[in-house]
C-alpha cells in the first residue's frame, strides 16, 4: 500500500510568487526537500527564493506562478527519509538561565534535560528571525515548552533555547523569548565564511554535552 500524497495548496502571492501549504510541518519539510531535488535536476522553473517555514514553502521570483501552481497539484512528494551523511554536532554546556524552569516543565532533573536534549536528533525546518537562526524540529510533543512570558532584551550569542515545537541556537546576541538551556561555542553565522550559515533548512543537527 502506498502512502497518500501530501495535500498541497498553492496560494498566489502577488504576481511572481506562490505560497505552497502542506498539511503538516513534516509535509512542508518533505516538499522543501523535493523542491531542492527538482531544482538540482533542472526540472523546476527558475525561482529566486525557496523559503520553507512552519507549514509552507514560499517560491518567489517565478515568471509563471500559475503554471507551476497547476503542476504542483499533480506532484507526488515522497515523505522525508532518514537522510544520508553525518549530522552537524554542536557541543553544548547545559547551564542555561532557564534550565531549572525547563527541568520543572519536563518533570526531570537538570542533568536529565541535558541527557534528553543531547540524545535527540533534530532537523532544521526553516530559518528566520536573524541570519542563520534555524528552527529545529525533532522534540516530541511532551517536551514542547512555552516561550518566556517576558522576552529577554539580550540573549547571548550561542544560547541554545526551546520554544513550542522548536529548539534553536541564537547566532548572535539579540532580544529573545526562548527558554535557554545552554550555550555553544559553535559559530552559527559568519558572513565571511562559505557557507555563511552553519545550519540551513534540511540540515540534521545533534547536540553534545560538554562540561
Amino acid at each position, binding site marked *: 500500500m502506498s502512502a497518500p500524497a501530501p495535500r498541497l495548496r498553492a*496560494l*498566489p*502571492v*502577488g*504576481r511572481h*510568487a506562490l*505560497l505552497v501549504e502542506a498539511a503538516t*510541518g513534516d509535509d512542508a519539510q518533505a516538499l522543501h526537500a523535493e523542491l531542492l531535488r527538482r531544482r538540482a535536476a533542472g526540472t523546476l522553473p527558475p525561482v*529566486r*527564493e*525557496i*523559503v*520553507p*517555514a*512552519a*507549514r*509552507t*514553502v*514560499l517560491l*518567489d*521570483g517565478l515568471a509563471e506562478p500559475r503554471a507551476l501552481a497547476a503542476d504542483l497539484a499533480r506532484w507526488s512528494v515522497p515523505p522525508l527519509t532518514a537522510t544520508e551523511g553525518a549530522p552537524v554536532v554542536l557541543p553544548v554546556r547545559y547551564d542555561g538561565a532557564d534550565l531549572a524552569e525547563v527541568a520543572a516543565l519536563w518533570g526531570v532533573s537538570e542533568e536529565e534535560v541535558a541527557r534528553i536534549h543531547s540524545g535527540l536528533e533534530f532537523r532544521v525546518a*526553516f*530559518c*528566520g*528571525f*536573524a*541570519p*542563520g*537562526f534555524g*528552527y529545529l524540529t525533532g522534540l516530541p510533543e511532551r517536551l514542547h515548552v512555552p516561550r518566556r512570558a517576558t522576552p529577554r532584551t539580550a540573549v547571548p550569542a550561542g544560547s541554545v533555547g526551546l520554544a513550542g515545537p522548536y529548539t534553536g541556537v541564537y547566532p*548572535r546576541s539579540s532580544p529573545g523569548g526562548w527558554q535557554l538551556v545552554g550555550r555553544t561555542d559553535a559559530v552559527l553565522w559568519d*558572513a*565571511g565564511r562559505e557557507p*555563511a*550559515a552553519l545550519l*540551513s*533548512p534540511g540540515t540534521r543537527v545533534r547536540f553534545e554535552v560538554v562540561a
Partner: protein
Amino acid sequence: MSGTLTVVRAGALTTVQDLGRPGHAHLGVGLSGALDRPAHRLANRLVGNPAPCATLETTVNGCAVRPDRAVTAAVTGTPCAVRVDGRPVAWGAAVRVPAGAVLDVGAAVGGVRAYVALGGGVAVPPVLGSRSRDLLSGLGPEPLTDGAKLPLGAPCGPSGGADVVPWAGPPARGLVLPVVLGPRDDWFTAEALRVLSGGGHRVSPASNRIGLRTEGPALARAREGELPSEGMVLGAVQVPPDGRPVVFLADHPTTGGYPVIGVVPEPSLAAAAQAAPGTPVRFVPVRK
C-alpha cells in the same frame, strides 16, 4: 584610479545600497538594496556605472561627502538642492566634483530619499554578494557617520549621457498602491477590504526601510488565532494585531506570523519609498 570618500555630514540616515542580496531568504537574509530602485539605477546610469554599483541612499536631510579625487556624481530620487563647494549644481544630472571639493545633497523636497552615485561606485567589501546595508539583519556596512571614510571604485566608463531625468513629482492626491489580494485575505472581513480601499490611511512617521507603516482605520480580522510563520515577499501588506497595514520594503523580515492581506507589485514600491509621513495612502485591491 580608486579613491576615498570622506563623510562630511552623514545626515539622518545615509546607507550604502545596491540591488541587494537575492537568493538567501532561506537563511533568514532578506533582499535589502535601494528602496527606490529606478532612482538608484538612473543615478548610476548618469555617471556611467553599471546598475549593481553601490550608491548612497539618504533620508530626509541629505548628506555631504568629499572625494579625494575628481569624480563624476549624480543625485536622483527625491528632488533636493545639490551643491559643490557651496555652488549650486544640477540635480538629476552628471556633475563634476573636483578632488577635495564637498558634494552637498540638501534636504528632500517632496520625497524622502536621494540617491548619490559616484563614478566607480562606493567600493566597500561586499557581504554575500552585496554592499547594501540591511537595517534588520545588520549585514553590510554601517550607516554613514561624520568623518567616516569609504573606498571609491575605479570609474567604469563614460557617463551615460542621459540629459532628461523623469520625475513624476509628489503625487497630487497622495500615494496610490495597487494590492494583489492574498494569500491571507480570507483572514479579514469584507468590511476590512472596504476599509483598505477607503483611502483613510496615512504614512506613519514610524516607517523605515523595513516597512511603510500606516495610520488610520484598523482592518478587522474574520478569524482569530495565530498564523504559523510563513515566508514573506517584498511588497507584502502585513496586518499586525493593531490592524494598521504595513507594506514590506527592502529590509523586511524573511518570515512572519501576521497575515498578509495582499501584495503591492514591485513597480509601485519606489513611490512608497518616497512618500513622506502624513501622505494619504489609498490601497487599490486587485483581484488575483
